[in-house]
């Protein structure tokens, strides 16, 4: 695609020195991103200002010089899954194509703070997936072995090692949920999810990308099998490329272009406790108990579980979620029963039948999707954004994401991530 000259500006760099100077002068920092009028025409319209949409925009501008780009969101930046996820990053997936893809994302995440000049606080504290049954232990070995062959640091560790990493864990011989071992993935960890969203938005905006909040896409115009543009309450916008990055709402936006997706939207809930002094290092996940937990630098425990059992677009959350969460987490760490749940919330997850994303072209020319991120797509933002930007810029689907095309469903060639992604995060 042809490059267009769009306005660029040099953002004021963030640094310790800058903080000092601003502190002394008491002056303001420049805006993280500017607001602008909505143009009638863009080279690329990205629907959804979550990590996927924003990363795609950033890489379009930074790697391909395409910056006549609008990112539209019906709400605020990061108001979707990207602002409500438990922020767990890892690459220890099950299939070689999955592992390679997520590993690329980890690589980008490792340098993201410097890249974006925004501290995203990626804390590689280690990630433990507990095995309570023979079958899950076998899956852990499977994952570890595939990971190693792809160069990803991952191994199965004993209950004693689990106890060493997480002293609060009860590894005694439970009758019901014994801990038989765990998959340990030292590079895994947590990140400040909002900072990732804001950092991408700020950096993309600095390169000329426009970010339009409170701008809902209500229609997509398609003529002769080609996308023409989108409709918003603020007016029509023409664009030869429209990229759907709307996660939980993906079916609705695809539906506007007449494209049907293999996606069911399920709520996924999360909760935080009040802060206490830091006692938990690694991220702990238990697939059998449907719970994962980590402790932030602020001292809160952040919890998640599996998706709600039925399809819904409700983000209201449920009591049974916190009940189950609490009983499961106390099964693992019985001594934290006096901690209190401070807040619970929900997000929407675009679940696919094979727990793998849908990235690439659709039957409508120019209408691209980067969806199907289910319960695990935050960690994928950088790699997906980078690959989608390449697809937009070159017209070719990068090898890294070729296994994840929409056509796989019609062809019956699903990706086998079910075992690793279901509650894995």
């Amino acid at each position, binding site marked *: 695609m042809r490059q267009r000259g769009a306005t660029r500006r040099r953002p004021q760099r963030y640094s310790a020195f800058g903080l000092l100077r601003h502190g002394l002068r008491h002056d303001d920092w420049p805006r993280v991103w500017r607001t602008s009028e909505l143009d009638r025409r863009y080279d690329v319209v990205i629907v959804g200002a979550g990590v996927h949409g924003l990363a795609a925009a950033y890489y379009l501008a930074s790697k391909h010089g395409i910056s006549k780009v609008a990112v539209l969101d019906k709400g605020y930046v990061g108001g979707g899954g990207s602002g409500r996820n438990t922020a767990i990053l890892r690459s220890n997936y099950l299939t070689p194509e999955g592992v390679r893809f997520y590993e690329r994302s980890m690589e980008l995440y490792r340098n993201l703070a410097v890249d974006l000049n925004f501290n995203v606080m990626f804390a590689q504290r280690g990630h433990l997936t507990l095995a309570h049954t023979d079958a899950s232990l076998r899956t852990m070995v499977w994952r570890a072995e595939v990971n190693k062959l792809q160069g990803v640091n991952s191994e199965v560790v004993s209950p004693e090692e689990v106890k060493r990493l997480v002293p609060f864990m009860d590894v005694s011989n439970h009758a019901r949920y014994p801990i038989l071992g765990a998959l340990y993935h030292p590079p895994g960890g947590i990140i400040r999810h909002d900072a990732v969203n804001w950092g991408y938005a700020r950096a993309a905006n600095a390169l000329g990308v426009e970010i339009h909040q409170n701008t809902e896409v209500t229609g997509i115009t398609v003529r002769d099998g080609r996308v023409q543009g989108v409709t918003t309450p603020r007016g029509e916008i023409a664009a030869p490329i429209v990229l759907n990055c709307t996660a939980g709402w993906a079916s609705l936006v695809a539906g506007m272009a007449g494209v049907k997706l293999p996606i069911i939207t399920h709520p996924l809930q999360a909760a935080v406790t009040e802060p206490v002094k830091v006692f938990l290092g690694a991220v702990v996940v238990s697939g059998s108990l449907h719970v994962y937990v980590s402790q932030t630098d602020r001292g809160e425990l952040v919890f998640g579980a599996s998706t709600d059992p039925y*399809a819904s677009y409700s983000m209201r959350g449920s009591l*049974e979620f916190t009940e189950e969460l609490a009983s499961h987490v106390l099964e693992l760490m019985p001594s934290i029963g006096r901690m209190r749940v401070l807040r619970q919330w929900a997000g929407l997850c675009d679940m696919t039948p094979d727990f793998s994303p849908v990235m690439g072209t659709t039957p409508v020319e120019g209408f691209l999707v980067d969806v199907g991120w289910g319960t695990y797509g935050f960690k994928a933002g950088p790699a997906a954004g980078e690959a989608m930007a390449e697809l937009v810029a070159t017209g070719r689907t990068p090898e890294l994401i070729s296994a994840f095309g929409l056509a796989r469903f019609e062809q019956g060639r699903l990706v086998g991530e079910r075992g690793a992604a279901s509650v894995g995060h």
Partner: protein
Amino acid sequence: MILLPCPHCGKRNSNEFSYLGESAPRPTETGDAKLWRAYLYTKENPAGWTRETWLHSGGCGKAFLAERHSVTNEVRATWLPGRKEPDTTTEAGS
């Protein structure tokens, strides 16, 4: 815990039910891959009224169809498989 109106038992907590998903007719033609894959994988996934099948597995064990609003979780109609579908085209009580 939402309530689901089982046509036999009345309103019960949703954790007594198994969710069987959007109701879609099974293709009769087995040779058409496109048709089958659409039946297996493609979903309407609307944000609004949706027709789906539930099984009251923790109660009477009976399956039924329901028209549920996927945003509010309100159920405005239920009926038994094979019975005439209710006409709910008038947006009642949404």
